[in-house]
């Protein structure tokens, strides 16, 4: 029961953070939307900051699960890397996609010393490291550089997709990613 209540609060807060923005979502709004007393919220989460960090963690878990469920580990060469990038693009193209939580959070909390900012960067870095690891396995000469370039493309595609759904940005970004991957192994 306690876990169910905790999950309920986190889910309500996550939806509000994703749709309205983190700063724009006050504790009162979360409490009111969840239909709970403020004391109940603080019973499970010490602060709004903890709620934000757990929201980011939840988003990261979902992203990773979504990616690793789709990407086969037995693929050889660049196939796995292309599949990984393709899975990220697919994630972005989902009608429920509201932006990468860690990117949005780092924008809302630009101060480098802010814990939310730091955690956001860690999650962003984790995704890039996953791509770099796959690139290295594929035999790419400079996996970190390729991973950065692919991350830029992914971020641009995510922004474009949010500006206009179904604009073709995802397909073009996927093509661009394949071109960069092919060029990187030559």
């Amino acid at each position, binding site marked *: 029961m306690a876990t169910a209540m905790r999950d309920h609060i986190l889910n309500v807060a996550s939806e509000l953070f994703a749709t309205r923005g983190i700063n724009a979502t006050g504790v009162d709004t979360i409490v009111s939307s969840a239909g709970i007393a403020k004391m109940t919220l603080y019973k499970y989460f010490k602060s709004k900051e903890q709620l934000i960090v757990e929201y980011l963690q939840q988003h990261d878990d979902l992203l990773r699960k979504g990616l690793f469920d789709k990407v086969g580990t037995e693929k050889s060469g660049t196939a796995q890397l292309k599949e990984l990038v393709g899975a990220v693009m697919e994630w972005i193209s989902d009608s429920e996609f509201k*932006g990468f939580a860690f*990117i*949005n959070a*780092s*924008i*809302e909390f*630009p101060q480098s010393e802010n814990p939310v900012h730091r955690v956001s*960067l860690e999650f962003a870095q984790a995704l890039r490291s996953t791509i770099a690891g796959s690139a290295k396995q594929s035999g790419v000469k400079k996996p970190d*550089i390729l991973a*950065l*370039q692919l*991350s*830029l*493309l*992914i*971020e*641009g*595609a*995510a*922004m*474009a997709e*949010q*500006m*206009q759904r179904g*604009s*073709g*940005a995802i397909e*073009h*970004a996927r*093509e*661009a990613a*394949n*071109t*960069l991957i*092919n*060029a990187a192994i030559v």
Partner: protein
Amino acid sequence: MELFESSWFFSMVEKRGSTPKQRLLAVFTIAAEWIAAPGLREKFSLETVNDTSSSQQFQHLTAFLNRLSVSAKARNPAMLSNQLALLLIGAIAEQLRHPEMQVLEEAADAAQVLVSSACTRTFNIRFGYGTGLAASVLAVFIGWHLLTQPVMPVAAAPQVAIYHNIMPVAAVRQVNPDEVEAVLALHEQILRGECNAPHLAMLPPDQTTAYMNVIESRQPDDPAADEASLRAFMAWYNSIHAIECYPPHTNDHINTVWVRKKVG
């Protein structure tokens, strides 16, 4: 994204490059210089990068890049311009979050790869001199056969799919379809520049005739003899030349198409 509201940005890009390709890449340099200008980073709100009201500025940027891509003779200007725009806005967002990194430089390198790939023209750079020469010999033979033998009307740029349309395998039903398919598949690989063309002048005449009958969609005079010749030809080719075949291109860098000109 106020950068793309300003005509300053676009005029700077125009001035920076002397060719459309250079201008496509200059977009990244100018954006990097703009972000690095004193005081601008502070004025520039990161949130405006993600703001959905930036949609119109994104469209300005894409339209500008599209004009340059058309001038640069990109195969698919709409796709190239969109790809560069995605890369640029992603890089600007990342650069603003990480001023200490040279993100736009890495983006410019990626853009160069995309531009080179999109603007590469038809000739296969992996197509060696020997292959080109052999293909020329093949082309001469094709021309010679066209002049000297009755020809069924065929498309100007033959490809296997077209062959199948104009000459279903059943049209040469007396010849084993597997032999015909094998020759057509090889011929398509030669046209794509993946395999060396055979030196037809060096082949036994019956094999040359059988080969030409297939690729020129002609009904053979002696199907049984053609079938044997095709089998011998393929066995010879597979033992001598098949090892030199390149795998199909996967990076879309290059398209080589040999176009046969109409005779007469």
